[in-house]
């Protein structure tokens, strides 16, 4: 009896049940989506066969996969172009968003004066703005960057502004009491306090910068000026090259997923030590 107790610490039934559920949930989180995905691909393949759908309308998954391999040099070069725009515009969105947010929190007047403009930029569809940019800007990369930046910077700006302003009043008093300068208050108090908000905005902006880049390429690509993935899709569409179209589409989604996962990981690593929402996500 005693040996038994030592061998396995006694856990009551409820706790055991909870542990089992947690374990099942952890497995399910990965296994279920993958299973559904495999099922969907299989169904897709079967549909093509059962209804004898021609390849230029709906290619079988196997064909798409082999296109992905055979067209790899072309597709991956284009992916790289798109990714370059995406990451660069994300970087600029971080710099611009955080910079503007810091500027806004330095003075209520600045915020009041300029925040509406940020909103105007945000709510106007980028597709409608692009022709203007096309007129004013010559450099191809700059055009795409501006577009993608406009789409991506707003969540960072608004989240960071919110974060910088949502500092514990008592902590601000404590800083004042200790004669902290404006810079010290920003560096030691406001920026760290805004970190979770900023990271939330960054996650959204990551996805948006990809969307911004692709949309910009679409609009630019229509006039044959782009070499990104979007132009591959347009091209393939003209030529009824559905397998390549699907392959390009898959690459874009994959890029989006990877960006999202990387940013989630980054924010998890940064917040792991202190932020509550990161903690509850762990559980």
């Amino acid at each position, binding site marked *: 009896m005693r040996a038994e107790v030592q061998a396995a610490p006694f856990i009551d039934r409820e706790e055991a049940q909870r542990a089992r559920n947690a374990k099942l949930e952890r497995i399910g989180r990965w296994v279920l989506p993958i299973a559904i995905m495999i099922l969907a691909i299989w169904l897709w393949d079967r549909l093509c066969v059962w209804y004898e759908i021609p390849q230029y309308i709906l290619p079988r998954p196997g064909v798409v996969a082999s296109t992905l391999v055979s067209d790899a040099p072309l597709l991956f070069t284009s992916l790289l172009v798109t990714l370059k725009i995406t990451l660069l515009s994300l970087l600029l969105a971080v710099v611009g968003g955080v910079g503007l947010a810091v500027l806004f929190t330095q003075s209520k007047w600045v915020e009041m004066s300029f925040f509406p403009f940020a909103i105007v930029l945000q709510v106007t569809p980028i597709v409608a703005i692009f022709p203007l940019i096309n007129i004013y800007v010559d450099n191809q990369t700059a055009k795409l960057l501006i577009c993608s930046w406009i789409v991506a910077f707003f969540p960072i700006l608004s989240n960071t502004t919110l974060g910088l302003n949502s500092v514990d009043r008592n902590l601000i008093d404590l800083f004042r009491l200790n004669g902290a300068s404006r810079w010290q208050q920003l560096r*030691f108090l406001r920026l760290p306090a805004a970190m979770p908000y900023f990271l939330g905005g960054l996650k959204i902006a990551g996805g948006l910068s990809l969307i911004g880049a692709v949309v910009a390429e679409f609009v630019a690509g229509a006039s044959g000026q782009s070499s990104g993935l979007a132009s591959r899709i347009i091209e393939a569409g003209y030529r009824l090259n559905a397998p390549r179209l699907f392959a390009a589409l898959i690459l874009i989604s994959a890029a989006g997923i990877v960006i999202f996962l990387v940013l989630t990981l980054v924010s998890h690593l940064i917040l792991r030590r*202190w932020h509550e929402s990161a903690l509850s996500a762990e559980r």
Partner: protein
Amino acid sequence: MTTEVAARHEPLLQLREIGKTFANGVTALKAASLTVREGDFLSLLGPSGCGKSTALRIIAGLSSPTAGVLDWRKSLDKDHIGFVFQEPTLMPWANVFDNVWLPLRLKGKSRTEAAPAIHELLERVHLSGFEKAMPRELSGGMKMRASIARALVTRPRLLLMDEPFAALDEITRFRLNEDLLDLWQDQRFTVTFVTHSVFESVYLSNRIVVMAARPGRVFRELAVDAPYPRAEAFRTSPEYAALCRQASQVLADAMHAEGR
């Protein structure tokens, strides 16, 4: 010895006819006068809304009075004030050491320069070994201890505390009361302590200023003549009971006098 005792009872600051009316028209303080003496453990006792926090913030220079004067009798600068809030208000992204380091860091002291003072204080508040702990890993009492260490790390002459133990359970509160008294006797700073617990104010202070609300004002002052050190036994002594009864009576009078 006698000169030192005398020095310990010289006025440190005086509030003379201090008034505070907020922009929304609320008069938080009206003609409040009181003297804080060097070495005092002075409690501000009163019902909610009588302007205790307001008075403390005015003393700290975080808020300016609309009327009256705040007279510092000894040249003190802001370095010499420590403030403890009702909540521990630690920075959640920094560990205990960094939180306590903050006031010194803001004054340009490097980590290594500040380290001896921080370690010593953490030991005094019984947090040795928790330097690396994050605030969320600490109990409420431990957080408050860290908060007290942070307030004392600059070696303030005057420690202002705004209901620091109100959110803690009784056992923890008693323990922190004792530890605070120990620190106070050891390091000889002056304390102005806001509370609405009669028992706490009698246990801790040598003087109690009872305040009344609507409008907030000083109602009466009480001396608590029981000698220090006051150990746990003091809480069960008849003397303590009598003092508490007396203070309760004054507080009841103060609340009765409200609105007149």
